[in-house]
């Protein structure tokens, strides 16, 4: 008798992961819509005005979840990369490539909304402080990963090269996170962290967490959709794809 209820290695095979991903996508897509609607409603309608920044602070409901997600997705990519390099599983590389564009999107969103927020509050669109600069590097790491994979024709070799870039770049993630503690920065410290009680009103926090969950669901939806395309593309000649395509 097997010790684990789910045989994880079964789903490490693209042929069995493909239909599973297909079944999961609608659920996560629905969750994205519901959570984003709830999050935006709480953030824009329910949460109170901020005493310091007035209504302008509401961009936080996109800015912070997008920044969290951009860092988190990179960690997940590094995780899949380490798995792919050591266990030689094909699906790992596919998952890494499937996550990269969404990560780049969130990194861009974080920089863009941050810039829009910085001008009215700080008085500058952009400053070269440690937080902003390290986040910009993260965005470039995503672009570099996508470009590197696109430049290599053989998918297995592209996976390996990308995996090394993802693993090397992951060093940047703690730098982004702790930059506001380690150095003097214009960017303020974290409002929500593991070590202290959140320094914001409860409804504001609720809106932000709902948006964060919505971005999670969105990321999963997009990654699964994209990985299905990648699987089909790479396994085009295999028997199961031919059968599947006939359906």
């Amino acid at each position, binding site marked *: 008798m097997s010790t684990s209820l789910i045989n994880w290695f079964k789903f490490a095979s693209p042929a069995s992961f493909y239909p599973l991903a297909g079944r999961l996508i609608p659920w996560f897509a629905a969750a994205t819509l519901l959570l984003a609607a709830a999050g935006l409603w709480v953030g824009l309608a329910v949460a109170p005005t901020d005493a310091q920044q007035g209504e302008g*602070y509401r961009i936080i409901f996109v800015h912070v979840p997008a920044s969290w997600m951009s860092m988190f997705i990179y960690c997940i990519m590094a995780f899949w990369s380490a798995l792919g390099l050591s266990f030689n599983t094909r699906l790992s590389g596919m998952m890494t490539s499937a996550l990269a564009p969404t990560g780049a999107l969130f990194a861009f969103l974080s920089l863009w909304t941050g810039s829009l927020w910085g001008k009215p509050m700080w008085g500058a669109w952009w*400053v070269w402080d440690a937080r902003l600069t390290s986040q910009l590097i993260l965005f470039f790491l995503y672009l570099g990963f996508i470009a590197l994979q696109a430049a290599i024709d053989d998918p297995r070799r592209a996976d390996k090269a990308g995996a090394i870039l993802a693993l090397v770049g992951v060093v940047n993630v703690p730098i982004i996170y702790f930059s506001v503690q380690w150095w003097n920065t214009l960017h303020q410290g974290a409002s929500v962290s593991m070590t202290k009680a959140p320094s914001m009103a409860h409804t504001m926090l609720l809106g932000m967490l709902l948006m964060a969950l919505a971005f999670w669901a969105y990321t999963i939806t997009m990654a699964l959709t994209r990985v299905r395309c990648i699987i089909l593309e790479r396994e085009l000649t295999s028997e199961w794809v031919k059968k599947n395509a006939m359906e």
Partner: protein
Amino acid sequence: MKPRHKRLLLILAALAVLGVAAALVLNAFRSNLVFFYTPTQIANGEAPKNRAFRIGGLVKSGSLKRDGITAHFIVTDTAREFTVQYTGILPDLFREGRGVVAQGKLGDNGQFVATEVLAKHDENYMPPEAKNAVEQAQKAAKTLKQ
């Protein structure tokens, strides 16, 4: 040990080495990575001389004087303080008692002449009513002490 476990171990070891290397490099560049210098740091001569740099701290309450569009105010870190002179429009969040970062040069008379002033806000978000309550509680605590 299977080869795949060896590879995983190798990757983890490489990541650890990379992490240590990054930590050492960042530590070496520590002084170049600060966005601003505090008044105490400037008073101790840590800020670059004859070159523009940024000063950061709190705007001292009651120190803001306006002369046309030229503003004078004192930046303090509660230990040391510097007078800052700035000609131009101050950002909306610029307030006495709040954080500020000004870029410019330190004049011979010890006055900091700024070319750019940025407002630095904290990570606390609360509705105005809650803020009033907090301020009143702080006032009450002060009077109790006296």
